[in-house]
């Protein structure tokens, strides 16, 4: 009986064969792969345009074999708006961190969602500013120690972590908003489906599509990769519940 070898899991086509600059155990890498798989799934590499943001994922274009514009910090949704209006048939996604999207980029993300820009937003929430060395983010958990909340986030002074998926779901132009995580194989699978859905919404012109991904930043959390991975369900999910917050393709 002849035996052949069949691939079960391989690198998505759209991902270049380049080692990333991410730290060991950083979830950015997983989310990159899921985005790449979604692009492969729809066969739209040729018309996909990525909008990079400023954060650890700023080097996006080193990893994805697609056209990319690098946006100033927080402005990816505005840059994406400009790109999409010139090429309405392209597939535009932004890839943003929590500092980028939920702090400096608050106005841009809210208004892009409200306008119903036909784009997909991948939002990696790791409760800190990874790239700049672990400062407090709008999503930093109460009490969490960061380099700019050395005594722990004090909600009386610094407010509560912002729940972006819920906020975005409230806006008129939003077609889809969900929160996922990538800390277990099962959740990675779910997250992949959700991201694929968010690309599909755009392709079918169903409004603004937003996916918040809870992600680990072992380096700035001062944890090992495994500890950091465990924190995602251990600490983050309590405050940031997973789920779909809006989906206009599903009737309530």
């Amino acid at each position, binding site marked *: 009986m002849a035996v052949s070898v069949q691939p079960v899991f391989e690198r998505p086509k759209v991902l270049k064969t380049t080692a990333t600059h991410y730290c060991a155990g950083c979830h950015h890498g997983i989310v990159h792969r899921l985005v790449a798989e979604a692009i492969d799934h729809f066969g739209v*590499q*040729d018309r996909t345009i990525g909008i990079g943001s400023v954060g650890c994922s700023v080097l996006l274009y080193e990893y994805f074999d697609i056209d990319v514009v690098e946006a100033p910090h927080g402005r990816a949704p505005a840059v994406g708006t*400009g790109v999409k209006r*010139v090429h309405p048939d392209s597939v535009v996604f932004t890839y943003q961190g929590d500092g980028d999207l939920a702090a400096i980029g608050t106005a841009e993300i*809210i208004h892009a969602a409200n306008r119903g820009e036909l784009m997909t937003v991948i939002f990696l929430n790791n409760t800190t500013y990874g790239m700049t060395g672990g400062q407090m983010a709008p999503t930093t958990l109460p009490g969490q120690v960061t380099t700019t909340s050395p005594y722990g986030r004090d909600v009386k002074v610094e407010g509560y972590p912002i729940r972006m998926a819920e906020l975005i779901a409230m806006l008129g132009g939003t077609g889809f908003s969900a929160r996922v995580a990538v800390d277990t194989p099962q959740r990675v699978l779910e997250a992949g489906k959700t991201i694929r859905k968010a690309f599909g919404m755009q392709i079918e012109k169903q409004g603004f599509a937003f996916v918040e991904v809870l992600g680990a930043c072992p380096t700035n959390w001062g944890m090992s990769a495994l500890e950091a991975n465990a924190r995602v369900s251990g600490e983050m999910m309590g405050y940031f519940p997973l789920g779909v917050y809006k989906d206009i393709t599903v009737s309530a």
Partner: protein
Amino acid sequence: MNNRLFVKGNEAVAMGAIEAGCRYYFGYPITPQNDIPEYMSREMPKVGGFFLQAESEVAAINMVLGAGAAGGRVMTSSSGPGISLKAEGMSFMAGSEVPAVIVNMQRPGPGLGGIDASQADYFQAVKGAGHGGYRLIVLAPWSVQELYDLGMLAFDLADRYRTPVMILGDAMLGQMKEALIPHSYHRPADLPEKDWVVCGKGRRNHANVVKSLMLKDGELEAHNWHLHAKYDLIKQRETRCATDNLDGAELLVTAFGCAARIARTAIDMARGEGMKVGMIRPVTVFPFPSEVYLQATARTPKVLCIELNNGQMVEDVRLSVDRQADVRFYGRPGGTGSLPTPEELLEQIRKHYKD
């Protein structure tokens, strides 16, 4: 109307832009340039173009960045505070070499300041609003007609050099109306292909990336030298300046934009009184027409620079003439009730003519 239209300056620059193929406009309201977005919102749909009022000037300039990176001919406009807010975006566009046109209809500042004519943003436009030592090509129209004409030229310059171009108008030029002779845009045959734009990589065998972060050893430095070589080329090729009666002049008067407009009448009055006054009016303020000043002051070593600010272009005049000329300055910073009159400038010309 013997093919002359009666047009407001703000609308003229928008008309020129659309004629030149501008099909994307992103902006945010601010006095004294609101006619531009208003005109665009009305006219863009008629030519298959696209108008969007952004949530802020910051968003607007970044939409412009996106549309420019995507290959569209795109424009924004603002004034004072709004232009300041675009500083980061302009620096990004210069850094990532994204062509676009930015109109600043100057109003007086600092801060909220006022809404009348001013030229207090010369430094900002010419020396560097944003960080990183980039340059914008800066065009300085002085009439409704020139707003229209330069409104076309700006797009060609932007595309030719892959650079943001600023049209530096002011509240007077934007709000005034006068005759305009429209004409068709002709695309220069030698404009480079936009093979660098993002549009989906299609069948290209490489992806296009528009970016300004450069972290590899030596990469950023090489890029900056490249940009500055480009600026040098622009200086050689694109300097524009209007002059008159330089021969035999005893005094050179120089001004740009609205100040030149007012000075024009004052100079005519002075000539009426028998004074020999030459006029130099930069049409590009970056690149600055240094050569014109150098040559003119070789014969007439006295220049009166008039500005609607506290002295900005005069520095470039001084840097141009270097060791030769006596450069004087007369300026007022603008504000309600503070527009100089031709009579007032005539007084200055008389004074500086004499001593």
